[in-house]
Every structure is written in C-alpha cells, then in structure tokens.
C-alpha cells in the first residue's frame, strides 16, 4: 500500500474522481445535463444557451463550494490530528462549529431585530466560529504551553458548554429553530456565488498554508524532545497549526454549517493509503475531502429532486451532512478496522 507508485496512482485516482464528480454534480438537478454539455458550457461554448445559465449561474457555485469545503475540512482534520496527536480528532474539535452555531442561534433569536438576517448569517457564523477556535486555544494554553491532550479535553468541554448554551437559546425562541437545523447538520442547498466569495479567501489562504505546514507537522508527530532537537519551536508550531485548522474549518462552517465526518474520514483514509508522512497525508486528505463531499452532495441532491413526499413544496433538500453521517460512518468503520488490526 505504501510504495511511492501506489501512492501516486491512488492520488491520481482521487483527483480523477474529484473531476468526474464535479462534472456530474453540475449535470444533476431538476434538469439533467449530460457531462459533454456541462463541459461545453463551462468552456463558454454551450450547445444550448440555457445550459450556460443553469450550469454557470445556478449549479457552479454549489459544486465549487463542495470542492472547497471538502478540501478545507479534510485538510483541517489532518492538521488537527497532528496537533492533537490523535486520529479521532476532527475539525469540530477546534471549537469553530459550536462557536459558529451558537453565534447563529443568538443572532437568529432576534435580539437585534435586523431586517434580513439571512444574508448576514454567514458572517455571523464566521465570527462565532473564529471566536470558538480562539476560545479553545486560549482556554487550553497554560503558561503559554499547548499540550495535545489538554487541547483535546478543553475542546470537548468548550464544545459541550457552547452546545448547551445553543440548546438553551433554541428552547427559548421558537422562530430560530427552522433556519438553524440545516446549519447544525451542514448543507450546501441553495448556495450561490456570494457564498463562494465568502469562503474563497479562507480557502485561498488556508489551503496553501496548510499544505506548507507539512514539514512542521512531521516534526510535531515525533516526541517533543526529538521535534525540538531538530529545530522546531514546538509551541509556536502547535499554535500555528491549530490556527490553520481552525481558520480552514471556520471558512467551511460559515458557508455550509457543521458538516461532520469529512474531516475525520479524509485524514484517516489518507493515512491508510499514504502512511504517516505529512507531506503526503495533508494533500491527500484535502483531495479525499473533496471527493467525499462532492459524492455525498451528489447523493443529497439526487435524493432532493425526487422528494419522498410529493406534496412538499419546490425542493426537499436533503442536507449533505446527513448523507455523510449515514453513508460515511460505515465507510469509516471499515477503514479503521482494516488499518488498525
């Protein structure tokens, strides 16, 4: 499994899968557009002018978001697993999901009474998410030192507290419930170009930076003394990698809500395929994240065009987070059973 050739082959396979899924994703919707027409529309040579509108205006933002969010969550999870020295770590353990959702709930509870909360919501989630990440980092540092285990425990506690606070606010305000559910589980339904612009800066900055962190990540995977002896300032490196993981996850959460499993599954799959070297694990985790999220969103979308209850209005959008939880869990269990004997 671990030879350089099979790594290259599997990486290539994942990349091809991402492209195929991307094109399929653009084809799928109320009207099916075959792949050749999708590609032509993308190249600005549509066979049918309506293809252009459907593919480029309506569907492209969602597909791009699937790509970006999957990539960000996969990479974020891989970085966090290094910082926390734990293969069960996932982006939610940065505190950004609960932070973002708590902010959203507070906001929706309507204390500010703004005219159109929907448009501002992603920003609110983003700010809450970043604050959640900062809170975990701050609460877990002790005399300026970050310890992997203390970081995990702090994150679990902060998440529990923020989760409870969210429930309390929700219980106290009925109107907030409807909108927040899809954030809780994570969804890409109805996303538009504005959402892409919101996530893009975080992805554009966070993904390259996260990949460049591979060298530091490799040393963090050793014992503290070895890492330091090789010239890595451990504490700043931990803060930086945690920060990157949090920023990537926050960018993702602000447009899609708290999508679970991708950030756990992608890095674990990457480790099974590529071993432990972060120079391979990080990019592969990002790539697998894309593939998983696009595939899951494809399922979510195809289920939504044939709603089980025909009487329901225009679209019953199955949230991608739910699909991932249902299909992802068995996949992850199989993977872990095979890799940890």
């Amino acid at each position, binding site marked *: 499994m671990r030879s350089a050739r099979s790594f290259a082959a599997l990486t290539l396979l994942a990349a091809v899968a991402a492209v195929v899924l991307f094109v399929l994703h653009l084809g799928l919707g109320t009207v099916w557009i075959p792949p050749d027409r999708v590609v032509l529309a993308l190249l600005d040579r549509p066979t049918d002018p309506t293809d252009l509108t459907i593919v480029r205006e309506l569907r492209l933002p969602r597909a791009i978001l699937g790509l970006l969010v999957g990539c960000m969550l996969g990479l974020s999870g891989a970085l966090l697993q290094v910082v926390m020295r734990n293969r069960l770590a996932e982006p939610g353990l940065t505190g950004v999901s609960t932070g973002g959702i708590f902010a959203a709930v507070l906001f929706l509870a309507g204390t500010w009474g703004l005219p159109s909360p929907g448009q501002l919501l992603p920003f609110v989630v983003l700010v809450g998410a970043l604050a959640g990440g900062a809170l975990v980092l701050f609460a877990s540092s002790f005399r300026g030192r970050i310890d992997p285990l203390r970081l995990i425990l702090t994150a679990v506690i902060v998440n529990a507290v923020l989760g409870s606070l969210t429930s309390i606010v929700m219980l106290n305000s009925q109107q907030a419930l409807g909108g927040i559910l899809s954030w809780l589980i994570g969804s890409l339904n109805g996303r538009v170009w504005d959402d892409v612009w919101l996530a893009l800066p975080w992805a554009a900055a966070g993904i390259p930076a996260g990949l*460049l962190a*591979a060298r530091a990540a490799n040393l963090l995977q*050793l014992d503290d*003394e*070895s890492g*330091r*002896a*090789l*010239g890595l300032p451990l504490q700043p490196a931990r803060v930086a990698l945690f920060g990157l993981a949090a920023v990537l996850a926050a960018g993702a959460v602000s447009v899609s809500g708290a999508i679970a499993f991708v950030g756990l599954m992608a890095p674990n799959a990457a480790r099974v395929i590529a071993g432990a*070297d972060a120079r391979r694990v990080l990019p592969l985790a990002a790539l697998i994240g894309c593939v998983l999220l696009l595939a899951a969103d494809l399922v979510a979308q195809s289920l939504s065009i044939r709603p089980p209850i025909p009487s329901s209005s225009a679209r019953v959008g199955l949230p991608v987070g739910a699909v991932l939880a249902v299909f992802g869990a068995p996949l992850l269990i199989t993977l872990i059973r095979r890799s940890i004997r």
Partner: protein
Amino acid sequence: MNHVEPIRLAQVSAGYGQRVVLDGLDLGLQQGTITAIVGPNGSGKSTVIRAMARLLPTRSGVVLLDGQDIRSFGPRGIARLVSVLPQSPSSPPGLTVRELVELGRFPHTGLFGRLGVEGVLAVESALTLTGLADFAQRPLDELSGGERQRAWVALALAQGASTLLLDEPTTFLDVRHQFEVLDLVASLCTSRDMTVVMVLHDLVHAANYADRVVVVDDGRIVADGAPAEVLTVELMQTVFGVAARIFTDAESGRMFCLPIGTGS
C-alpha cells in the same frame, strides 16, 4: 587541541518546575573526542544532554556553542550544530525509515522542504552507515527494537551536525549491534572529526570507547577523566553502590568492570 570547545556548560543550573537538577555544573567538550556520561538512574545525565542542546533552558549560567552563547542561535541554528538522540524517541505509526531519516534535514531546508543534492546524499549515507539501506521503505513500527534504534541514529547522522549527543544509544541493541553502533560512532569521530557525548549504562563500553568518562551523581560531576583513572572500585561503591572488580583483559587489551553485587 587548539579548537574552540564545541560545547561548554559554564556554571549551569537547570531543572524542571520547582525541582533543581543541575546546580552550577561546569563541563567543556573537546573537539573530535568521545565523552561518556555515566551515573545512576535519575542522576541528571539526560538533563545534562538537554541543557547542552537547549532542549531545557538554563536557570543560570551559560551554555556556549562554539564559544558563543547558545541563546544567540535560533532553534534551527542549534540543530545545524548539534544532533540529539533522545532517550525514548517516538514516531507516528506508519512512518518509514527513510521518511524519518529525511526529517533530519529539517534544519537545512527552506519553506518547501526540498532536500537538495546535499540532503539526499546525507540521507543516503546515513542509511548506509547504519546498515539500514534495505530497510528504508519499512515502517518503523514494524522493525525490531534494535533496527529502530539504528534508524534514530541515522536520523541524527543525516542532520549533519558536528556534535552528536546520544542518550543511551545502545539500549535495545543486542551485543553485536551495540558494538556496531559504538564502532560507527568511533569511526565518525575520527573520519568526520565529530564530537560525541554518549550517555551509557554499560561501563565496559564507556571504558573502551570513550576518551573521557564523566560520572554524574545527584546532578553533580563527581569524577571526570580518562576511563582508567575514573572507573575505580571505590567509585563503583560510592556512586553505584555495588562491589565490583575492575581489570584489563590481557589478550584484547580491553578494560572490564565486573559488578559482583550490592553486598558490602
């Protein structure tokens, strides 16, 4: 002997939290020599190693690297001059020998981590010298304790520093591999003019491989000098609390230290 000392500890005090382990320690290394640090468990041997590479900041006193205050070097700067093999290193499951050894080049590579020709050569030669060329693709967690130990030695060699601090490099090794590692260290010392400090529990190795033996007890240096001067029956009794016989094997010319027991 006209070299600057690669490392000197001057009046160094160091410890953990409230606990002071080293208190005003003085120790200088001679370029191109092997120094063995011996002493009972918990006497502060590893702490001396840590202080030498600034893995543990000093409370007072100074550590000089090539005659310069170690605090004027960055972490990578120190790592280019001093390699450390910690007492119980660990690597993530699945990391291969080559991947581990390549990490030794961290202090020499830039943002993108390109090894470069020099780096590749350093890694290859470290793998060859430690006899691990055939193991390069194997994950560390699937190796025997001794093979793994050699991989960590290879990592320290790939780092390319001229001073090598090895904390118990022969633990886990069978007799033959103990000699191999020690012979390797001795040959590097002469061929590359490297300065070596080894923490050793086996006094026979200390006696036969080191130019100088430093005995640490309770955070202080209680004896320091050529093996034959330092390793005496009295020292064995006072420092280690064992009765011992010390003799030189006429045939091999090697010095032996044979502990008899704790009885007085």
